């Protein structure tokens, strides 16, 4: 499977969805999927077994239906089971705790005996979308990348089935299989377009030649979460975007983020010793970059933007002060357009005071650079913390934005 990196700057737009909902969407658009069920209660599988022949007669695969990376290594994927074994596997998996997340659902699917594995993906680009197609799908697709054939689809255009079939033939599919693959691709294009998908990757698409049955055995689908207002049947939520379950602190900040005007964000990076308490999506990334460029290591990524209320910034501050082993906190930001520096700094100051009273911030140096509405009052209030015994260094707009990182690392 090709890894899809995520975008932290527009986190709400690209939403990876779990296999269950993706299969449901495939079904909706006539893309063949194996039989599957998603369950929360293992006993439900017994009842389903009574009702569904395929559960009794096919080999089954049981997978934790959660956004947990490396499921195979964690024993959260079990292959080649009969119904009893599947039941046992489901019982073992449900309720297991992995980091801060708990396995609450498993997906049980038919393991289709098959003859060949194919690769099909579609991803959007500025002018439309591109189909990638190979008849050498499966786990080794990266090694067979030169077999991949491409088909560009201009925005709002639909390629003819003949045209897709030609590409399939080029990719080495033959005869009826080429025609059937072309048909699946044309449905995939529809699904991609109408469901506001950003990318769909089916690997492998398998075929059992005895009855010419196709099935998408594994799929990764990203939808445009910004488009949810026009999809009444999207009953799913996007999964964690950072390749691992969220920590408790991250979850808390996300809960606050969901309730406020503006936003606060936090991603923890274990092992770092420079904490970021930075403002704005653009500037915050540049602060992370500056730390890395100067040989430092970040303990987190954070941003607050869009003039959030001071209490939300206070909560973010306290969370950041609790990060383990930090030596510096970078309170950085560009010259804000409309975020009130005095008000947001007020939240940061309260957070610092609270943290200090709880015993945090010992031997931690704080570096501040900011501009924007009410910058003079905000910076002056921050500077006053020196009188309260904080090791704090405050700079105004005349200090180049990320140069406080240099100062911190040279101190």
């Amino acid at each position, binding site marked *: 499977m090709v890894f*899809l990196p995520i975008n932290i700057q527009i986190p709400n737009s690209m939403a990876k969805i779990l296999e269950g909902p993706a299969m449901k969407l495939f079904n909706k658009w006539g893309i063949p999927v194996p039989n599957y069920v998603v369950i929360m209660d293992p006993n439900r599988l017994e009842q389903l077994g009574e009702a569904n022949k395929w559960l009794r007669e096919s080999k089954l695969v049981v997978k934790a239906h959660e956004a947990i990376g490396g499921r195979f290594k964690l024993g959260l994927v079990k292959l080649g089971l009969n119904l009893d074994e599947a039941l046992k596997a489901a019982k073992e998996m449900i309720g297991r705790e992995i980091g801060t997340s708990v396995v609450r659902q498993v997906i049980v699917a038919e393991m289709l005996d098959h003859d060949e594995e194919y690769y099909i993906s579609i991803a959007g680009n500025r002018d439309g979308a591109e189909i990638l197609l190979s008849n050498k799908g499966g786990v080794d697709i990266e090694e067979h990348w030169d077999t991949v054939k491409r088909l560009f689809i201009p*925005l709002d255009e639909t390629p003819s089935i003949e045209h897709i079939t030609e590409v399939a033939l080029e990719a080495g599919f033959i005869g009826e299989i080429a025609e059937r693959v072309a048909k699946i691709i044309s449905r995939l294009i529809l699904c991609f377009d109408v469901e506001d998908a950003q990318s769909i990757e089916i690997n492998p698409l398998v075929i059992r030649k005895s009855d010419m049955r196709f099935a998408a055995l594994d799929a990764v689908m990203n939808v445009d979460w910004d488009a949810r207002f026009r999809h009444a049947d999207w009953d799913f939520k996007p999964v964690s975007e950072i390749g691992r379950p969220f920590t408790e602190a991250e979850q808390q900040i996300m809960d606050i983020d969901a309730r406020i005007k503006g936003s606060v964000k936090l991603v923890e990076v274990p092992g770092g010793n420079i904490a970021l308490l930075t403002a704005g999506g653009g500037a915050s990334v540049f602060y992370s*970059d500056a730390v890395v460029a100067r040989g430092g290591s970040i303990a987190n990524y954070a941003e607050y933007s869009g003039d959030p209320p001071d209490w939300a910034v206070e909560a973010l501050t306290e969370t950041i002060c609790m990060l383990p082993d930090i030596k510096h906190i970078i309170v950085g930001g560009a010259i804000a357009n409309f975020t009130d520096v005095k008000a947001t700094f007020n939240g940061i100051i309260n957070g610092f005071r609270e943290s200090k009273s709880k015993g945090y911030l010992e031997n931690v140096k704080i570096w501040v650079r900011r501009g924007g509405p009410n910058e003079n009052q905000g910076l002056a209030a921050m500077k006053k913390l020196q009188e309260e015994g904080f090791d704090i260094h405050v700079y105004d707009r005349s200090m180049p934005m990320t140069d406080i990182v240099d100062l911190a690392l040279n101190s």
Partner: protein
Amino acid sequence: MSILANRDTRAVIIGGVAGLNAAKRMAQFDFLINRPLTVEAFVYPPEEGQQKEIYRGGELNNVTVYASLTKALEENPQINTALIYIGASRAYQSAIEALDSKGIKLVTMITEGVPEKDAKRLRKHALEVGKTINGPSSIGIMSAGECRLGVIGGEFKNLKLCNLYRPGSFGVITKSGGLSNEAMWLCAQNGNGITSAVAIGGDSYPGTDFVTYLQMFENDPETKAVVIVGEVGGTLEEEAAEWYGAEKRRIKLIAAIGGTCQDVLPQGMKFGHAGAKEGKKGLGSARSKINALREAGALVPDTFGGLSKAIKQVYLELQATGVIQPEPELDEKLLPELPPSVQEIMKQGEVIVEPLIRTTISDDRGEEPRYVGYAASELCEKGYGIEDVIGLLWNKKLPTKEESEIIKRIIMISADHGPAVSGAFGSIIAACAGIDLPQAVSAGMTMIGPRFGGAVTNAGKYFKYGVKEYPNDIPGFLSWMKQNVGPVPGIGHRVKSVKNPDKRVKYLVEYVTTKTTLHTPCLDYALEVEKITTAKKDNLILNVDGTIGCILVDLDFPEYSLNGFFVLARTIGMIGHWIDQNNQNSRLIRLYDYLINYAVKEEREVPDKK
């Protein structure tokens, strides 16, 4: 010179309150550079026909809200630019409509969260009709000394600090809105400021890309160098590099690209974009963009902080080669100041405003209400009750415990008098007619007057007069009353009499005189008066209004406040009656005919009108 927006730009804002705020900010810039108002119309159907107040300095302008863009353009044909501030679900349609409107050349969209497909279609449509769409998620466009579109540039003070009142020599293009402001500042701090700055928005597929704007800057002779601020993801920065390297360009290019930190982040935690999907070639990574730009000849510092030096370096080079002529420093003191609001001047003590009203009892400007200086919560904490709040707000005094007990009893005794009396009956009729609580209680309240409940004030007033003017001469008082007032208020009852006394009066008098140490000259006087009046007629007793009035005078409440006790007490009862009728879901009532004496004329024919 500038790109995209200039002194001839006239804009319509499509959207509600966020658009209005932007228009106000834009008008501050209009004031700074002394140009006519940029925003000449709003389009927002829910507020059709309203006029929005926009200050350009001290000058108040009214800008009309239209229901449709067509109508707005019909009445304002000079408009050539549209700003989209409407929600993501309607932004696409609005932008298409704007692009299709004849006079409009530029559409810039602040709306965030626009679906990618919509953004892609907008870009395609704009290319087809040969117009420019900027955004989505764009904070705006600034042309120094010419025009501001959106809130780009922040507060008024910052507009001056960034030299935005006059053009400089640097162009700015950024994805991030916050960094557009920072970049404008850097150009002012380390160079001579900007010609134009464009925030293209941080979405995956901006309506217009770096290359298009770079070409515009290349064609603008006043722009000598361009600062671009890009981010990881997509390939717009690589395309900019390709454009810059393709042939000899007149403009110098300086760039900062965010996202290099992704190289060292733990596996899986990448700040990247789907565009970098194939991964192997590293296309779309910050590193690939930086390398491409450097190879094309752009100056790319290794951190954002390094931009300051880079801009300074380019500025000095351009000055040395004579491309940029030094210009005289402008004395910033010559620039106008935003007229302050009355509140601001008052804070500085430079203006006197005669207050419209004066209050002496309460103040809610702090964290909680204060009654005559006392914090409400502190009163609660220290065991004070509602009687004490009445004492404070009606008489500016805290009653003693004894006095509070009396006040409490007066209110308890007067709270309700059954459904038959005018006040309660009025409320009940209203409740039965489906009238809401405040209005139904008001209906009962309007009954309070000379014949119902309104005698407390006058009773207190005249008995107090008697105590003062006829202390030992009750006959004299009575004859003065007869001559000047009429029947003595507070004396007399329709059904009660000496033999059938009013239990409430008896209780109150007994309580006050035997259970408290209150000095009661007025009540004593009224009881003396009663002795004389009841000698004349059995039912001329001191009634409950008179009793209460006298006690309240003895409690030192101002005489004109006395009816307030009846009003307050009865409100409790009237609210009760309204709730009661609603609980029962009572039907509309009308009088039965047999309760009405129809003393009317016989039926007769209407005569012809003369």
